[in-house]
């Protein structure tokens, strides 16, 4: 007698959204959004400016009301139990939500006080976060004197004071220099290790690719695609390899030898050949060139990225 195999433990749902709609006057911003985010994962809402990303975050974080639709966060109903929802979420908006007339430390103590942590716990939490975000040295200075990157870090630290189970990050790295962006990415990656669910919006395809377990593409208020970064990339056929040669005659010879359509650039001495990117196909091309004595100076393989996906699905640049 074999007992039925136990089902794999299902991961609880952190965010469930159904039929969410929002208009500002005549302008439809969200036109029926459905999505599900499993607990402990990073979900990236990707889209160009004006796609409705910020509105989505503002609704899910109880800041504004949707016109229609349902949403549950950690099982609490957004419309009926907003106070419960507020207890489990943390929000870092697109515009810095720090008090510039207070010091960094005072900002964190303010948050700790509002979460009723109690003085010793509040102090301990504040110092830990200052340390973790590398802000201890400037903790006594007014936030008005902070750089953009420091304000962002403080902003996120303030969001973490309450140990939220679901964190919303609205364009967390917009306006940051590349180094600060890397730091922010590392912070987000570290967060998910503790089982926190992250819902982030971004207009940077690379960022979604780096951080997200699941990506949804938002365009004009509608989700036009959803999946893992790999799944989305597979939606676009268009990868290619780029071959560079040392002179124009070799380039011309190569074009005839490979006997495939290719785009030659005589200025750059390069030849772009569409491929699926598979190894046998690449080997085939290289063998032919080798057999005919054509020397390749450089080879680069271009796999489709999310830019291509967006371009394919919308006909627009992201």
């Amino acid at each position, binding site marked *: 007698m074999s007992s039925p195999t136990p089902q794999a433990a299902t991961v609880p749902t952190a965010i469930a959204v159904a039929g969410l709609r929002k208009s500002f006057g005549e302008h439809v911003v969200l036109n029926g959004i459905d999505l599900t985010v499993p607990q402990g994962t990073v979900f990236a809402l990707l889209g160009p400016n004006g796609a409705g990303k910020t509105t989505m975050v503002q609704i899910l974080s109880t800041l504004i009301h949707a016109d229609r639709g349902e949403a549950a966060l950690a099982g609490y109903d957004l419309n009926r139990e907003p106070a419960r929802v507020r207890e489990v979420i943390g929000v870092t*908006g697109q515009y810095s939500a720090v008090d510039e007339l207070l010091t960094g430390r005072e900002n964190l103590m303010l948050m700790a006080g509002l979460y009723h942590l109690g003085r010793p716990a509040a102090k301990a939490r504040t110092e830990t976060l200052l340390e973790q975000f590398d802000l201890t040295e400037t903790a006594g200075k007014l936030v008005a004197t902070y750089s953009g990157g420091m304000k962002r870090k403080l902003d996120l630290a303030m969001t973490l004071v309450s140990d939220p189970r679901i964190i919303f990050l609205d364009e967390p790295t917009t306006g940051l220099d590349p180094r600060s962006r890397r730091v922010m990415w590392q912070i987000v990656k570290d967060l998910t290790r503790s089982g926190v669910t992250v819902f982030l919006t971004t207009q940077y395809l690379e960022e979604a690719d780096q951080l997200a377990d699941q990506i949804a593409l938002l365009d004009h208020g509608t989700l036009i695609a959803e999946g893992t970064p790999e799944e989305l990339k597979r939606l676009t056929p268009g990868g290619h390899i780029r071959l560079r040669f040392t002179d124009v005659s070799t380039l011309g010879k190569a074009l005839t030898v490979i006997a495939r359509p290719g785009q030659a650039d005589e200025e750059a001495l390069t030849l772009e050949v569409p491929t699926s990117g598979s190894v046998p196909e690449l080997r085939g091309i290289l063998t032919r060139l080798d057999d005919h004595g054509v020397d390749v100076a450089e080879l680069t393989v271009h796999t489709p990225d999310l830019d291509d996906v967006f371009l394919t699905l919308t006909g627009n640049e992201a």
Partner: protein
Amino acid sequence: MATALADSAIMLRRNLKHMFRYPSMIAFMILMPVGFLLLFVYILGGTVGPGGQSGRAAYATFITPGIIALTMVAASTATAVSIASDMTGGIIARFRTMPIARVSMLAGHVGRGVIQTMLGVAGVTAVALLTGFRATASPVDWLAAAAILVLFAFALTWLSVALGLAAKTVEAASNLPTPLIILPFLGSGFVLTSSMPTAVRWFAEYQPFTPVINTLRGLLTGAPIGNNAVIAIAWSLAITVGSYLWARKLFSRDPAPS
């Protein structure tokens, strides 16, 4: 309820930190009433005055309650501006997504507004004493005057909070309370209402600043108070309740899309 009080105390502390970090705000706030005080006492004080019974010091004593009322209007503008600029910043959006009593976000501003008003009133009163203002008040009278002022400041601060919330920009917030400046003039602040043309007199006698100024004048200089104190308290309570309800309604709206 306990949470609302605790949250309000935290918000008040935040607002007081802002205030003490920029004490120039209070100095700036009392510029206008002090300017009027000097203008009236030194330019006009020799000739105008209640019933012509003149002397600069006597006129300074007569108008100081009106100047104090002007100070309260100036303080209202400061409160409207500070709440409007707070609303435009991201931190209020953060507070709105946190599990805290919503009224505390306004209460912090109200507490600061009342304290700021009273500091301004103290500053202006000190200048008035230098220009010849003399009070005959006993310590109890001073306390009663302070109580009336706090009550009226509370009312005007709630009104300014509502005006600051209603304003779409910080500039608009600084303009909205400006018409209030006219009220101490169209009241008993600078001349006796009995000297005014009938229509103006009717308005002057029934608007809220007049009973407040009369009560203050009575307490500080021994003029008859009559039923002015009761009317002043009634006005203060009515303005407070009305403004509180209006402010709460404005604040519970969805914030405008940014």
